[in-house]
């Protein structure tokens, strides 16, 4: 008796384990071996059927759609086998439908969504089959089917077994899109009607331009043109038939001045036209170019978009044909133009533009020329005058020296004249220097100049500052502070004012602080200390690696080059080994521990070991629901709704509120709260 109970409990334990393993295995299919085992267990003992049903229903209520799906598949298989199981299932059919088909709107199927969809489809597919097969024995199945089919209006023929609500939404969406497309097509039609005339005009213009540029061979207008070939019809066509009579033939030959009648005249008509722009056709080519630009940049894209809109809206009547026609015409025109190989010069066009501009100049108001001769134009005004700035200083020097001098006196007197200001500027500059340079320039202009240029390029560029403003000047007041001994209004002491000289301030006016940071030099060396994985440390720190200490020169194998470094490293290694003997290798010790069951303290050496063991997932094959929630939104949410962050924000908000109160603290109603 006891043994029987024992075996029974063992079987039920086995069943429970089997069901859990089957349902939590994940994957698209059930494990066939496990399923066979489950069926064998249920078949062997009818009591196990009820237990299996209970277990499967419990798994079907799990908050994971994959578990539910697997449970439902197992249930389906058992349902096909056992009548007792069928009866049990049928008794709880509403619950099953709620769990597997999501028939209760208040209890939606759990995530992940893909598995939930599969589960719903499977349940809705299975039910009619069951009803068909086992309907006579289990009336509940027919009721369930009726409920699903008519109350929920589920169409079982529909592969995805969607509810009408879903279908309606889909339909609505499609209708809305259709409406939008129709609207777009209508708009395109309107646009097309508006623009078609313009396009046609441009096309006609292009066509006539082509006509003008390249006379069509069959065009009567072209034939009228004076051309020598026009008078020689024989040379254009095939050789004329030989004259029937000998004399006539000879006469013909004679009259034509040909030695023989067996000439084959080949005319090479160049198919690739090449046009040269010249004065005659400039205007035509210009308009051609404009038209081409218009077509390429404006018309073609818009026609393209119209065609797209029409095709999207499913319109295939005249409108689309018209748009396609337009597009073809435009493309043909472009193609034609390309074939013509018009050789126009960009430069000429530019000049033409300039000449165009010159015509605009007529609109400008005539300004009377400035009276009086301006012999000396200051540098900063030269640009304004439309002259090139005088870059070589010596040229300026020469000029001023040679011809500027005589007139200067005269002009300088007039303060409105530019020359006067220039004079002031010159006066302000130390007088001696320019003459010096000028003299020296006169003497050794070449070398000196070069040297100066060199120095100039070397000299640092410094922004203007206070020190430059007072360069070389003695400031009498600078750095002096008026010291008033008494603050009283009328009880002043005898000595009126006392000036105290502050050296610092005076110095500040004359000196400037220039920080010299030097130039950044990227680090060339690497740490190259040997690492446990066999590689070398790739860190490029300047002085010290955060992992391997001070960077020392090492060879390719990572061994220090210097002897003392080598010694130091050996010593360190030895000390480390002292701390953890070789036989206490954590891996090895863990193995020994698992074998013997004794704690040798392997976790001491690797803190990670124990932790990862505890964190291992229970069902590794199932989709991790928590991990799926790891989206940008959730990550942000974690940060934003973090407890400490919330606290911080609340504190800041409180502080702002408090400050408001402080501001109005003198008003009693704010002061109180």
């Amino acid at each position: 008796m006891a043994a029987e109970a024992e075996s029974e409990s063992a079987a039920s334990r086995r069943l429970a384990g089997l069901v859990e393993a089957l349902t939590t295995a994940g994957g698209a299919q059930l494990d066939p071996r496990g399923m066979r085992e489950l069926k064998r267990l249920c078949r062997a003992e009818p009591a196990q059927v009820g237990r299996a049903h209970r277990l499967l229903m419990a798994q079907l209520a799990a908050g994971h759609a994959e578990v539910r799906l697997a449970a439902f598949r197992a249930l389906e298989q058992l349902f096909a086998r056992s009548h007792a199981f069928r009866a049990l299932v049928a008794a709880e059919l509403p619950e099953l439908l709620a769990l597997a088909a999501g028939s209760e709107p208040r209890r939606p199927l759990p995530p992940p969504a893909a598995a939930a969809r599969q589960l719903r489809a499977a349940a809705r597919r299975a039910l009619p089959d069951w009803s068909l097969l086992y309907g006579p024995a289990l009336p509940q199945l027919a009721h369930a089917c009726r409920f699903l089919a008519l109350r929920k209006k589920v169409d079982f023929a529909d592969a995805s077994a969607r509810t009408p609500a879903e279908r309606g939404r889909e339909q609505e969406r499609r209708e809305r899109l259709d409406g939008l497309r129709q609207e777009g097509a209508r708009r395109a039609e309107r646009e097309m009607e508006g623009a078609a005339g313009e396009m046609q005009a441009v096309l006609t213009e292009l066509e006539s331009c082509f006509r003008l540029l390249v006379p069509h061979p069959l065009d009567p207008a072209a034939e009228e043109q004076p051309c020598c070939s026009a008078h020689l019809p024989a040379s254009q066509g095939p050789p004329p038939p030989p004259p029937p009579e000998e004399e006539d033939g000879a006469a013909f030959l004679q009259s034509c001045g040909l030695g023989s009648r067996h000439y084959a005249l080949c005319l090479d008509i160049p198919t690739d036209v090449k046009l040269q722009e010249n004065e005659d056709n400039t205007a035509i080519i210009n308009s051609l170019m404009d038209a081409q630009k218009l077509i390429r940049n404006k018309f073609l894209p818009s026609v393209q978009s119209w065609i797209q809109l029409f095709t999207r809206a499913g319109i295939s009547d005249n409108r689309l044909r018209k748009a396609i026609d337009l597009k073809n015409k435009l493309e043909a025109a472009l193609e034609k133009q390309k074939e013509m190989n018009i050789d126009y010069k960009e430069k000429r066009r530019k000049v033409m533009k300039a000449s165009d501009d010159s015509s605009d100049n007529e609109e400008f108001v005539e300004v009377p020329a400035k009276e009086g001769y301006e012999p000396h134009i200051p540098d900063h005004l030269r640009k304004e005058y439309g002259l090139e700035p005088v870059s070589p200083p010596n040229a300026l020097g020469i000029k001023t020296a040679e011809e500027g001098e005589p007139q200067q006196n005269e002009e300088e007197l007039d303060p409105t004249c530019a020359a006067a200001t220039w004079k002031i500027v010159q006066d302000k500059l130390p007088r001696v220097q320019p003459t010096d340079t000028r003299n020296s320039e006169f003497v050794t202009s070449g070398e000196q100049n070069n040297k100066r240029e060199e120095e100039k390029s070397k000299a640092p560029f410094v922004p203007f500052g206070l020190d430059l403003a007072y360069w070389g000047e003695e400031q009498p007041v600078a750095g002096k502070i008026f010291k008033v001994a008494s603050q009283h209004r009328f009880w002043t002491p005898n000595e009126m004012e006392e000036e105290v000289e502050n050296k610092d301030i005076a110095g500040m006016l004359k000196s400037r602080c220039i920080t010299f940071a030097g130039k950044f030099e990227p680090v060339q060396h690497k740490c190259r200390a040997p690492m446990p994985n066999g590689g070398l440390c790739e860190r490029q720190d300047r002085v010290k690696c955060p992992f391997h200490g001070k960077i020392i020169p090492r060879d390719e194998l990572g061994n220090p080059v210097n002897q003392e470094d080598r010694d130091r490293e050996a010593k360190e290694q030895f000390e480390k080994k002292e701390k953890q003997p070789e036989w206490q290798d954590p891996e090895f010790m863990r193995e020994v521990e698992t074998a013997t069951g004794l704690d040798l303290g392997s976790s001491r050496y690797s803190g990670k070991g124990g932790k990862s063991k505890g964190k291992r997932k229970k069902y590794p094959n199932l989709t991790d629901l928590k991990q799926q929630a790891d989206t940008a939104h959730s990550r942000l949410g974690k940060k934003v709704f973090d407890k400490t962050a919330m606290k911080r924000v609340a504190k800041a908000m409180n502080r702002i509120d408090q400050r408001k109160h402080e501001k109005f603290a003198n008003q009693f109603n704010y002061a109180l709260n």
Partner: protein
Amino acid sequence: MLGFISARQAGLDDPLRLRRAESTRRVLSLELSKDKDVERIHGSGITTLDIEPVEGRYMLSGGSDGVIVLYDLENCSGKPCYTCKAVGSVGRRHPDVHKFSVETVQWYPHDTGMFTSSSFDKTLKIWDTNTLQPADEFNFEGTVYSHHMSPIATKHCLIAVGTKSPKVQLCDLKSGSCSHILQGHKQEILAVSWSPRYEYILATASADSRVKLWDVRRASACLITLDQHNMEKSKASSEAAYTAHHGRVNGLCFTSDGLHLLTIGTDDRMRLWNSSNGENTLVNYGKVCNESRKGLKFAVSCGCSPEFVFVPYSNTIAIYTIYSGDLITMLRGHYSSVDCCVFQPHFQELYSSGKDGNILVWVPCLREPEPDDSSEKGLNPAYEDAWSSSDSEG
């Protein structure tokens, strides 16, 4: 069973005794019928059912789309498997169909030639069963939640109508007009019921959580207002005085002998009242889940001992013993909330309907289908196990 029969044969027992024992046994073994089914006409939820009391053969059902269907429940085919045919129906195409949900249908208690129906379209219609044409129509100002005709009345022909207005209206079929108005409730009347014992006693239940008993002969009409605390606690709080429940009272049913009254309310309670003095008998039925905002129709058994009550309990039907309040069983089979259940006393069958649009038949299932009946089993693979023969396959 055999003992009862022999005692009956010997004349030792009261003839009622055997009948009671057998019907009790049958009620206790109620189960979803495998053979009997009801033809499906309704396309939406079914709010109300009624079986005619004369023969117990015809059943009316009213749907939430206004359709009324008349079923023949009797199995004349001679086979165990039977689908109750719809004899007639007032479909959506019918010119006089109710526009909105039919809330109550009731047979004329003395004859199957007439029935009444009331609906949310604010009308009460009197129908001729044979032609399925309305013989009369009463219009009201508010939606009609419930109506009831006295099952035993011989001296009057009144229909009590509970509408959205707090006044109970009594329509006289003899004159075809509203003869009485009973005032006293403060909110809509969700359920009305005539006493099966005294023809002038009427009980009404309202959303103001009060249940009133009226004597329609009296000028000041209201006889008793039921009080759940039997006037003890309610002295302290005038708010709760004379309330039968804490929420809306939406179901009302006299026991078959008319001595007691059962009420259910949205406070998830069912109470049993002594209908003669309005005393709360304080029978504890536990939680009776009830989320309906409309009237709820429940049924009591007849001719059993003890008597049972069949109450819709959200998606299931709960069976309690009336006087002790024990939960006997829960009948599962509906897929959404059950609105109505009716009991057929002659065969101890229960019919239930709900928002899922199914009419389920619960029949006594006294014994399992015989296992040795090989011919039937051979015909029907639905009863067979289908374990595969090879051991490796399972």
